[in-house]
């Protein structure tokens, strides 16, 4: 069926548009042919042969290279800027700064080129030159006189009365966000056991392989912008607004992506500076960030401080969840997906008495931005360790304790979950795959102690949502083009959407092409964030292909002289469902009407309003701790996630391996280090900022939950990009406690921290070692 529209007016006289795919969920007993296969990435060959074009690979005739002069001070005012020597350098085409450009508003009331600088790395000036080397030389020739202002580096210091203000109005971004359900304080008074701890998580850098960057080219008033982004349409909207032009004058292209992890959801200054330089010079301009700039000024996972008080009764029922949360916002609020640290406190476990309050705090450091499961990763560190400790105090297995506090409904909205057993199934599958057995486990020998850890999670956004659109085009030779405006941020979106299209039409994936990542060629699609791309666009693709399919069957029915509803398509051939044996290939039908095409339009239907859609999951971890050297080795991880129907198991596994790997890095060694006197990041590079290497990565097992979420959307699939990272760090911390009896409150669990805690333990227990 074709897509349909419901149009209405709400109470305020505002139009409400609800679009429907025109096709229902795939039946659970359907025999799938393409969906569920571990197909190779459609763009795999291009990538491994180096032919895939990333933003940096764009080379246009006459293209210039740009570099940015960044603030060396965490807080300063530009008193004067002299660019004459830079401009005189041969090969330099333009130098832009606040003194020679119109002010363009940017985040928090600041400007793209702002005379006030609020962090090391803030943009002072930009140069376009014949080569990057010349642009760098020119940057060195710019003379800037700064008035250095007092700064605050650590968010722990930023709320003190004498702390310097990052901007007028103080260092709180907003009023605290407070949530109350029941009376947590009273419940804590009555609780049989209480855990009261203060946890911290560190600032982590995304470190996408591909940095942020843009290549801009003007043709008259029309701008083409290649940007490394998770949202071509968001960039189009924000850049058009910043440049004072219309969206149809801006074309944003993102063909391939070397990772974004949340940091590329919004336009960054490079998306505006490159077009400004291109306009000024009349030449195409490329502006890519280097690794240092990525660390300084392109977003981070904010550091948090979480004071947690949980209480349980004698039977292991959670009676109170209380959390006071501070989050380091950095110098700006850049927008995009919010880092909701409070959310999982309110939803993951059944509890009648919940209090959370959260404060976002400005500091003179790089801005926080969404980072793979923003807020949830930070919250899980505290929640899941607290749950582990409560279980131990109650003498309960940590999985059993969680089962006793199971919620089948979203406690914020009072709605049942679309798959109420999703978390329970995750518990079952992961413990079975891992061989969870806290009694008969290996404890290690000598200084090498082993332990097991468990942690769970929920995730709010993997269900996708409207509006999102796709088109399908059946060619005369039987091949299918799928066209959508979404972008493949490296997860394999092309392939997954291609499989859905192939499945819907009954053809082979090899006969499908997927075109995406271009605002000029594809219909609107939302930002690729929240693990929602497949679940947002997949249904629209199904709808578009279903539209084509119905048109095709009408043609075939006429040719075959049977009713269309008696026809089916499999392996690219159309046949009568209940016998006869006669069949025609799609190409044979289309040949009669060539060169006519069949065109299908697909929309993403609304999410159901009677259920809440979530992605749940759980992980088991085994670690070894060397109590002499503080070395922590993650031996193995098993994971299970309620991600609905698995469209491509290979691509799902890729997300899981990547998520766990980032979780290991977050747990053990990734941390941005800043000198508070200088306000400078000391490890703005990949030498001293330690991401995991291949030998840091444990043995990993993915236990499929394997239940389609047919209420979630018509594909039954939910996103998997973010979930696998959420429980990894606390599961590791819980395993460390199991191994050596030390509760690590502060992430990451570096050698320095582990050895310090082991030393404190030896001192307080007179060398008796394990206290657990």
């Amino acid at each position, binding site marked *: 069926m074709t897509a349909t529209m419901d149009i209405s007016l709400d109470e305020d006289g505002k139009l409400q548009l609800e679009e429907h795919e025109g096709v229902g969920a795939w039946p659970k007993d359907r025999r799938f042919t393409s969906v569920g296969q571990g197909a190779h990435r459609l763009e795999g060959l291009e990538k491994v042969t180096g032919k895939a074009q990333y933003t940096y690979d764009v080379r246009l005739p006459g293209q210039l290279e740009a570099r940015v002069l960044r603030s*060396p001070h965490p807080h300063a005012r530009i008193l004067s800027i002299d660019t004459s020597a830079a401009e005189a350098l041969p090969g330099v085409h333009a130098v832009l700064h606040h003194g020679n450009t119109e002010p363009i508003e940017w985040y928090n009331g600041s400007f793209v080129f702002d005379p006030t600088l609020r962090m090391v790395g803030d943009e002072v000036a930009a140069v376009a030159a014949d080569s990057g080397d010349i642009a760098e030389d020119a940057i060195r020739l710019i003379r800037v006189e700064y008035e250095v202002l007092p700064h605050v580096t650590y968010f722990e210091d930023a709320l003190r009365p004498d702390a310097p203000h990052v901007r007028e109005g103080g260092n709180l971004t907003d009023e605290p966000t407070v949530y109350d359900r029941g009376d947590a304080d009273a419940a804590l008074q009555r609780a049989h056991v209480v855990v009261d701890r203060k946890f911290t998580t560190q600032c982590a850098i995304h470190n996408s392989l591909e940095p942020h960057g843009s290549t801009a080219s003007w043709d008259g008033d029309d701008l083409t912008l290649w940007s490394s982004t998770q949202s071509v349409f968001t960039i189009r909207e924000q850049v058009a607004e910043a440049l004072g032009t219309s969206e149809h004058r801006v074309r944003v292209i993102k063909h391939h992506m070397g990772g974004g992890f949340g940091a590329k959801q919004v336009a960054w200054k490079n998306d505006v500076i490159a077009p400004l330089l291109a306009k000024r010079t009349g030449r195409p301009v490329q502006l890519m960030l280097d690794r240092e700039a990525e660390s300084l000024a392109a977003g981070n996972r904010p550091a948090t401080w979480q004071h947690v008080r949980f209480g349980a009764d004698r039977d292991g029922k959670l009676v109170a969840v209380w959390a006071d949360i501070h989050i380091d916002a950095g110098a700006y609020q850049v927008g995009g997906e919010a880092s909701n640290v409070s959310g999982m406190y309110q939803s993951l476990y059944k509890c009648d008495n919940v209090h959370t309050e959260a404060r976002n705090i400005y500091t003179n450091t790089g801005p926080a931005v969404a980072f793979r499961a923003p807020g949830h990763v930070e919250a899980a560190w505290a929640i899941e360790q607290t749950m582990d400790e409560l279980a131990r105090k109650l003498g309960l297995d940590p999985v059993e304790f969680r089962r006793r506090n199971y919620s089948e409904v979203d406690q914020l909205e009072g709605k049942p979950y679309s798959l109420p057993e999703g978390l329970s199934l995750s518990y079952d599958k992961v413990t079975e795959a891992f061989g969870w057995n806290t009694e008969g486990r290996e404890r290690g020998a000598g200084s090498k102690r082993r332990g097991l850890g468990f942690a769970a999670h929920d995730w709010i956004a993997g269900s996708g949502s409207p509006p999102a659109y796709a088109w399908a085009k059946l060619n005369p030779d039987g091949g299918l083009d799928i066209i959508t405006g979404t972008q493949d941020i490296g997860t394999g979106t092309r392939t997954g959407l291609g499989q859905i299209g192939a499945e819907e039409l009954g053809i082979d994936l090899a006969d499908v092409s997927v075109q995406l990542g271009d605002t000029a060629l594809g219909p609107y699609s939302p930002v690729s964030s929240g693990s929602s791309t497949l679940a947002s666009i997949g249904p629209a693709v199904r709808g578009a292909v279903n539209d084509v399919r119905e048109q095709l069957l009408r043609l075939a029915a006429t040719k075959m002289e049977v009713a269309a509803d008696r026809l089916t398509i499999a392996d690219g051939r159309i046949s009568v469902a209940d016998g006869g044996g006669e069949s025609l290939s799609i190409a044979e039908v289309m040949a009669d009407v060539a060169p006519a095409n069949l065109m299908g339009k697909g929309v993403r239907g609304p999410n159901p309003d009677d259920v809440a859609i979530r992605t749940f999951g759980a992980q088991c971890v085994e670690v070894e701790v060397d109590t*002499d*050297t*503080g070395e922590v*080795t993650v031996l193995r991880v098993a994971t299970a996630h309620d991600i609905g129907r698995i469209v491509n198991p290979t691509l799902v596994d890729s997300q899981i391996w990547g998520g766990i790997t980032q979780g290991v890095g977050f747990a053990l060694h990734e941390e941005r*280090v800043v*000198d508070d006197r*200088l306000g400078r990041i*000391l490890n703005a590079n990949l030498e001293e900022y330690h991401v995991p290497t291949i030998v840091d990565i444990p043995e990993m097992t993915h236990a499929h939950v394997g239940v389609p979420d047919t209420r979630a959307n018509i594909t039954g699939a939910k996103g998997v990009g973010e979930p696998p990272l959420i429980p990894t760090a606390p599961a590791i911390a819980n395993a460390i406690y199991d191994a050596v009896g030390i509760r690590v409150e502060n992430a990451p669990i*570096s050698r320095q921290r582990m050895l310090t805690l082991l030393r404190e333990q030896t001192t307080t227990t007179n060398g008796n070692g394990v206290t657990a």
Partner: protein
Amino acid sequence: MRPFAYERPETIDQALSMLSADGDATRPLAGGTDLLTLIKGEIVEPDLLVDIKRLDGLSDRIEPGPDGTRIGALVTLTQLETDPHIMQTYGALAQAAGKAATPQLRNMATIGGNVLQRPRCWYYRESEIPCWLKGGDTCPARDGQNAYHAIFDESPCVAVHPSDSAAALIALGATVHLRGSDGDRSLPLAELMSPPTEDRRRETTLRPGELITGYTLPPTYGKSVYLKAMDRKAWAFALVGVAAHVTVANGAISDVRLVLGGVANVPRRATAAENLLRGKSPSDDLFRQAAEVALEGATPLKHNAYKIDLTRALIQRALSQATA
């Protein structure tokens, strides 16, 4: 990175005459794994790089002989890691070379340049931060982020030497051979590596224009090991590295060298601990005492007291493995 000239002379004498011309403005280039990072970080800004990688008269060979093993300055870490003779006879060196950096870097890095690496201190490596080692007045690491820094206070600078192999070479009693425009000289590597001073703000006593031509390792009947602790499992500089070289005869330690990396400006020979060990029967208790003695005089900074425990553990483990 600023522009520089590049020359590839044919002979070692030609190279030496270029290098002696104007001090720091001319730099020898072999593997370049340290020098290029210094240039890109604008810590050093040479006018001329003299490529010595294919220099006639500078060896890239490992040559066992009756008086010891000669290792050419151009021998790569990969060669040391995989050479059967080094692996068998001088285990600590093969292990130290093999634990450095990554396979790609080890393929490039030469053992001549390895001991001449500059510190990886993050204050030193940031050109915009003044520091004592770069000619400034004070060391910002002393009261700053110093988790990776020295626990032995030997100079105004608290950076540690990044080389793994240097600790192993010193433990194996390496002699370093040098050639300058004034001629050749040889001295124990432990004497070439020396904490910086007010007038010599670098970690070696190498003279201007002088090249390391190679090393000689004396014959050994002992066993040697190198243990390294990192913040992750690979591709990180040592938090602490310990090289132990022990000969046991008739049930007693007849000869021992114990060298600690990652704890001081240069690899630190634990002479007092060696004296304690010599002549005694190997035992866990003895090794524990040796570790305590080796750490006497340590004055950890705010964030690196953990290195005391780590060094103690690695010393005991290294001695135990070297006497097993």
